[in-house]
């Protein structure tokens, strides 16, 4: 059985950690990333180990997927998030209703 997480909204440092799953100590087999991956440039990704990705060649096609400019933006974004300044900021702020519940943080990014 494969565990699939949708980290489109919650991933890329938006919950104070790189992925929202990190708060729970769970590692999925597959997870999807988008939105925050390139700081607003259009890009998305499905991340999994290679042995899962057994699609036949030609199973998926895209014209604009993996655009170099978006990928460059995402590399810069990933570097920023990995160095930790943005994520630290996200972890230190509180949600607007003042609660520290982790689920609220996972749904909405923390500030």
């Amino acid at each position, binding site marked *: 059985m494969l565990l699939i997480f949708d980290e489109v909204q919650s991933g890329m440092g938006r919950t104070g950690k790189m992925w929202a799953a990190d708060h729970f100590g769970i590692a999925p087999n597959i997870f999807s990333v988008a*939105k925050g991956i390139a700081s607003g440039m259009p890009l998305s990704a499905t*991340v999994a180990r290679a042995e899962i990705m057994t699609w036949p*060649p030609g199973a998926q096609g*895209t014209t604009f997927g993996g655009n170099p400019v978006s*990928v460059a933006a995402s*590399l810069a974004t990933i570097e920023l998030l990995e160095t930790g300044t943005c994520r630290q900021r996200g972890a230190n702020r509180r949600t607007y209703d003042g609660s520290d519940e982790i689920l609220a943080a996972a749904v909405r*990014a923390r500030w």
Partner: protein
Amino acid sequence: MTSRPLPPAPACLAPTKTRRALLLPSSTKFSKEGIVDLPLIGGPLPGPNAPPDHRTGYPRALAVLYTQLSAGGRPWRRRNHHRRGWKPFLDFAAGIAVVATGHCHPSVVKAIQDQAARLIHIVRDRFLLRKYGGAGGRSSPRSRPAAARAGSTSATPAPRPWRRLSSLRATIRVDSDLSRSPGRFMAGPWARSSLTASKGRTTPRFRTARAPECITRPMRTATRCAYGKTTGYLRRRVRQGDRRSIAEDHSARRRSGRDCRGTGPGRGRLYRFRRRSSWRSWSASPARTACC
């Protein structure tokens, strides 16, 4: 933080439609460059306590200022803005719009500018990728530097632009043995950086009919088409155990004069290695018909 009602916006200027839409104070100045003195927001703050948008049900979190944050990444502050009830607002918008690094972060802007000056678009389906993630190594095993041959975890930075691409691989740890596995297909360096690479793995049928050194070929020179068919030439080569690289074979054929000029016994076999001048006969060759 409790949301308390804010004083109304100063009525020095009649708010335009844009200002209303963005919940901007009416004193917001505009110029040809865009909104110049923005990052102050009046009105309900975004967040769970904000009144929901009547269309989406989302909190009204989109009262944002999309410019002038690039200079240091800090919002411009108006004097006495606290007394006026306006709040400086650094937007890390979440929800539909996403700017987890803030708006116009200098390093992100620079990356986009540099890349846009170098290469904007590729037709990624012209490439075949055996595995996902960035490879970071160079195309040919022979020409690849030792650092890239040793694997992705090498601390020695590879020459540009491969080094930039390797950070992605380090972040999303998909596979580290890509640069070591022989006989695989890889795309060019730019396609290799694609996060949405669609050609995840070659089929077993394809694998048996592939020349071991045939890597980093666009679709025109690849050993297969998108429908899994292979050319007879490469099938024969693999069956005969020919382990020479295609590049060597190509140059040898050219030296010997059998370089697919359109006549002779080599015609139709080496069509994939012809130069551009013989493109026309390439498209009409029998192998082309059998492939696609």
